[in-house]
């Protein structure tokens, strides 16, 4: 049985123009529908012979793949292996979307990009790598951010829509709603630390993302890869899993992940399949009386920005914060002070300022007695010198502000009275503005 959306495209037998040159698109432009092949060429038969031998695919399945177009949102840790396996298997057209450029810290997991691609648009870098693998696949790289203005126009052009590395919550709702409104299945996966999750949303009457998560999570509970870390092979496994489900849908076999959540635990090497709720009658976008009938402001809905860039908190007043330049002059003048680094131990192992005291924010929040005692000792030592403030530092200047707030509550009781300040922009600002030899991560 072939899904309607894919059959729909095959009926429009317009000839697609294949070019070997890749043109980076910075906006959404109309595409000619993909061409349906009448039969496989001898070269196709040789190239795909090992999968043609599978009764689960066969010649018809291969022909179905060749007329399918898939949009990959995000050419990162999931998108790279996803694009690679779809291209290798002979998918007809790949839309590769990413607004970012390749950075050195991407390469451990975003395996289509190489060292020489640093600074290049990820969409173009991924498309070039895919083309090298299979020149018969039509690749359309988009260097743009998906928005309520362009998402529908774009997704409508791709029968099997597909989201991969959307770290941020607004984009997940945006892609979900655009897929529901244009009737496309959404093969969605995510990976963080040592875990992965996968679900196919809006597929054959199954639930959409909003059916499961009608209300966005509080922003402070959302961790992305640059904060939480991720072992590169974990998104690799999940991206390959996405490729598998896309290939099953595109070839006509169908996916069995429509009302299922697959969870992967890399630590225990274990997959779990969870049966999910059905499509919800009261769902705001796919329910019986939907309130979402067009794409709106997702950043406002989620209370978060639709980028994966780190957000900047502003919890403290101006006089409670100092710049890295100011802190540099405190060191240069040898002013007595205490520098408290509140990052987790695993980050302190990567790099630290040599004279800092390390107490992770979590230990302060939980008031771990040993650590509080250590802090108290160091503060009273400082007070014996009759001068000096306590400066709090972290990676980017967010946790340090939280730590100041936590410690303000202890001052005068658990800890002697002292002036607390946080260092704006944290160690990364220190590396960027003061000490270029300090590692960045």
């Amino acid at each position, binding site marked *: 049985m072939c899904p309607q959306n894919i059959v729909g495209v095959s009926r429009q037998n317009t000839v697609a123009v294949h070019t070997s040159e890749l043109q980076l698109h910075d906006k959404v432009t109309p595409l000619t529908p993909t061409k349906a092949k009448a039969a496989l060429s001898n070269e196709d038969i040789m190239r795909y012979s090992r999968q043609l031998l599978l009764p689960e695919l066969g010649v018809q399945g291969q022909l179905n793949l060749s007329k399918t177009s898939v949009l990959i949102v995000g050419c990162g840790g999931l998108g790279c292996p996803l694009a690679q396996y779809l291209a290798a298997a002979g998918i007809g057209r790949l839309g590769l979307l990413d607004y970012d450029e390749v950075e050195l810290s991407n390469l451990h997991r975003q395996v289509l990009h190489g060292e020489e691609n640093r600074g290049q648009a990820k969409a173009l870098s991924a498309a070039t790598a895919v083309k090298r693998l299979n020149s018969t696949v039509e690749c359309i790289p988009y260097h743009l951010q998906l928005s309520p203005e362009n998402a529908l126009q774009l997704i409508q052009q791709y029968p099997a829509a597909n989201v991969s590395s*959307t770290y*941020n*919550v607004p984009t997940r709702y945006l892609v979900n709603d655009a897929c529901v409104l244009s009737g496309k299945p959404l093969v969605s996966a995510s990976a963080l630390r040592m*875990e992965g*999750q996968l679900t196919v949303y809006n597929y054959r009457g199954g639930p959409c993302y909003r059916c499961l998560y009608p209300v966005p*999570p509080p922003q402070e509970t959302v961790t*992305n890869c640059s904060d939480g870390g991720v072992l590169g092979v974990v998104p690799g496994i999940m991206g390959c899993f996405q490729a598998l489900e896309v290939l099953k849908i595109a070839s006509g076999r169908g996916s069995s992940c429509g009302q299922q959540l697959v*969870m992967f635990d890399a630590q225990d090497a274990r997959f779990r399949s969870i049966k*999910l709720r059905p499509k919800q009658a009261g769902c705001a976008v796919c329910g019986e009386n939907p309130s979402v009938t067009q794409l709106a402001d997702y950043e406002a809905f989620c209370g978060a920005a639709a980028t994966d860039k780190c957000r900047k908190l502003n919890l403290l007043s101006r006089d409670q914060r100092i710049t890295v330049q100011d802190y540099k002059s405190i060191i240069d003048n040898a002013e007595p002070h205490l520098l408290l680094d509140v990052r987790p131990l695993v980050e302190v192992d990567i790099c630290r300022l040599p004279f800092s005291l390390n107490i992770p924010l979590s230990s302060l929040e*939980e008031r771990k007695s040993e650590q509080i005692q250590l802090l108290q000792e160091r503060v009273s030592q400082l007070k014996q010198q009759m001068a000096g403030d306590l400066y709090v530092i972290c990676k980017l200047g967010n946790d340090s502000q939280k730590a100041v707030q936590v410690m303000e509550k202890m001052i005068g009781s658990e800890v002697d009275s002292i002036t607390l300040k946080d260092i704006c922009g944290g160690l990364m600002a220190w590396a960027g503005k003061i000490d270029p030899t300090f590692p960045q991560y």
Partner: protein
Amino acid sequence: TLTSRLSKCHKHHTLQIELSLFILSSGGAELLFDGVKKHHVTLPSQSEPWDVKQLLVWIQRNLLKERPELFVQGDTVRPGILVLINDADWELMGELDYRLQDQDNVVFISTLHGG
């Protein structure tokens, strides 16, 4: 066996229920439980059967270290946490009203946002 244990419970007119709670770290839900992923807990006997709503209160009082607002909102879990009972979405099981059975598996996962 499960049946014999349950019948034993009925005979004594008390309900001693053991619950295996697997708190998975998807998106960091285990961080609310001091980084411990798997908890095996025993709920105290009470005249009424335990339901999930009561379990959430019990967890808040007995397992959560800090910041309960990152786990519950009102009398249910906060948005972004999915509850699974015996490998099924709790929506299929009656959500807060589901009556817990001996040896049930209850899983709290928060959605991952990374890739």
